[in-house]
């Protein structure tokens, strides 16, 4: 994670957004779009592209707001600090009543992804059970793939998540989980399978220093959500349209290519049923 760099990039793009031609009446208020470490948040180029695609498509200034944790972004979203945000399926379900879907990314043809359990390449572990008593890197306590999946797997094994690992840490970024395991800071890590696969293509030197032990079932891809009570607002509708039409514009296509995504589609909430099931297990254990 390189906050200084991405913050600078953000400032630059915000400045660029400010001089974009004005759109329809009242469009002077920028649309604020929240980002989390769910995807490759350290890639300034990806962020620039996304900003450009959204601003072009909507014809009004767009502000990209980055926060370190899902909790912060979710809180911003609920209190109106951002108009929409790309979050994880887990926080979306946690606030299912207040939030509504405005798009689910399609990766490799499906709006689904998996959680990976990774270790160092020379680690003999063959499953989660072998990693008991070791150190573990989670991404974020509100991340599905980076926390919920592994925690509920431990519960499903009949073990207690707080004592299963000798020590666990949060890195607040899927890429950071890969770094922690690659460097040997922790023995194992829970990581977004989509992020790991993309890293394998973009940074093979980093992802290559980890090995996937187990993959979870297919679960709903981290969605783009907004507050349910604001879904009818012009800005939100415009954003929704632009997200769905990304494959039809040059900048949109480049953005999707940079993200290794096919498109962003309208999907029913049932896509997240798998996560909901895990949440139920967690609640039952709690």
């Amino acid at each position, binding site marked *: 994670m390189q906050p200084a760099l991405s913050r600078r990039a953000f400032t630059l793009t915000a400045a660029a957004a400010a001089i974009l031609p004005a759109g329809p009446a009242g469009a002077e208020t920028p649309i604020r779009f929240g980002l989390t470490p769910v995807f490759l948040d350290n890639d300034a180029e990806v962020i620039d592209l996304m900003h450009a695609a959204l601003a072009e498509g909507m014809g009004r200034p767009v502000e990209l707001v980055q926060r370190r944790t899902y909790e912060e972004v979710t809180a911003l979203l609920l209190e109106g600090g951002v108009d929409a945000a790309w979050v994880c399926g887990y926080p979306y379900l946690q606030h299912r009543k207040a939030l509504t879907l405005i798009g689910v990314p399609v990766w490799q043809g499906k709006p689904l992804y998996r959680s990976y359990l990774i270790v160092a390449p020379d680690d003999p572990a063959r499953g989660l059970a072998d990693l008991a008593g070791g150190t573990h890197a989670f991404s974020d306590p509100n991340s599905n793939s980076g926390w919920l999946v592994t925690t509920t797997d431990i519960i499903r094994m009949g073990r207690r998540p707080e004592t299963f690992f000798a020590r666990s840490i949060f890195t607040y970024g899927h890429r*950071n989980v890969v770094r922690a395991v690659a460097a040997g800071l922790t023995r194992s890590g829970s990581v977004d399978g989509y992020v790991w696969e993309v890293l394998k293509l973009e940074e093979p030197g980093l992802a290559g220093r980890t090995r996937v032990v187990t993959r979870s079932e297919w679960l709903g891809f981290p969605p783009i959500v907004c507050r349910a009570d604001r879904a009818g607002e012009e800005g939100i509708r415009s954003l929704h349209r632009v997200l769905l039409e990304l494959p039809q514009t040059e900048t949109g296509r480049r953005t999707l290519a940079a993200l290794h995504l096919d498109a962003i589609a309208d999907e029913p909430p049932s896509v997240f049923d798998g996560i909901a099931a895990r949440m139920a297990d967690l609640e039952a254990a709690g």
Partner: protein
Amino acid sequence: MILRWLGRLPLAVRVSVLAAGLMVGLGIIASQQVLVSLTRSQESRLRELVRLHVDGLSIALGPAVLREDVWEVFDTLDRASRAGEGRRMVMTAVADSEGLILAATDPRNAPLGSPLSALAASARTLEDLEVHAGDERISVLAPLSYQGREVGKIVTVLDVSDLAAEQRRTQLWLLLGNVASTLLLALAGYVAMRRMLRPISTLAGHMSAGTGGLELIPEREIPRGDSEVGRLLRTYNSMARAVHEQAEAKRRLAERERFVSLGRLASSLAHEINNPLGGLLNAVDTIARFADRPEVVRKSADLLQRGLGHLRDVSRAALEQNRLDTSDMPLRAEDFEDLQLLMGPEIQRQQQELAWEVEAGPACLDGLPAAPVRQIALNLLLNASAAAARGGHVGMSVRRAGDALELVVEDDGPGLPPKALARLLSPEPTGPGPGMGLRVVRDLVAALGGRIEHRRENAVTVIAVRLPVPGRRDAA
């Protein structure tokens, strides 16, 4: 050993070598000083670098360590180790207040939760950090402070091999530079000293040149201007000239003395020639008058022959005395007969008694040159005759004494005055005055390697001269 060897070298070389040596010494001391201060500045630079590094990490890590945020600590270390100055960081481990490792740049060697003490064993604290120039790695243990309290500890190993290499390089170049400049200075010192001392070498060369005494230094070899060396050489030249003049004067004096001794004999020799002339003229008259009386003529002719023979002997002896000087004739018994003949008239004039005793054979005399021995004997005899006064006694004996020829001249005069004695026995200058003949005797005896003894016994002055007889041919 070296000193003795140095002592044998010429002064110019010695002083030049000394100058070069001093330059080398100066160079070594200067190099040493520069190296010492260079090392000191590098050590303080290194210490400052370590301090800045640790302070920087401390500031960056403080909050994360307080929260025991393992990832933040690791991420900070990881990014620090990738940044420019961080390349220096070989390893850094951070522990919480319990001393258990939170994170390290190399987590495999410093695992999460293991004690820091294993890594801290060889590390020094910042306070007693001893940085040695040439150290390749430095291990430091420092407290991590945040909000005024110690929240953890940090051990960091820094790679300072580049600084060590730089120092070695600097030292090498410095040393090479100093050696080069020192050698250059030494050479310059050597050459300058050689140049400055060249007149001294010239002086020494001229002073010891040849056997004919001091040699003048040509004007072109004397440095111009009023330098000490120039004055020295000019003074030497004037001294050499004075010595030359003195030697010349002495030679002229000896020459004159020879004539003086002959001169002193001249009037008695004239008498010696004049006295028989009356008798000879009478004989001629008798022959003329009694030409018809053969027995008278024969008797007169005999008388004439003897008289003229005596005259011939006397003049030959006088001529010989004058001529021998230039020839290299060996001494013969006849020379003493000549002397007796030359002295005879003077002795008679003074009505003195001359005791004459020559016992040395030709084998003994042969090794000595005639002229100086004759001059020695004649001067001593004239001196004795003058001292003995009218009616006195003069003695002369020549005999062999071991490997030497001994001439003993005695008289019953009042004895030699101190000044005359000094002239005879010592080489000290005595100033003008009578008795210069005795100084000639001393110089001649010295030249022949002989010695002079003077004694006074029973109111008789005895002067004995012993002349060693060199390389006797009959003994070979």
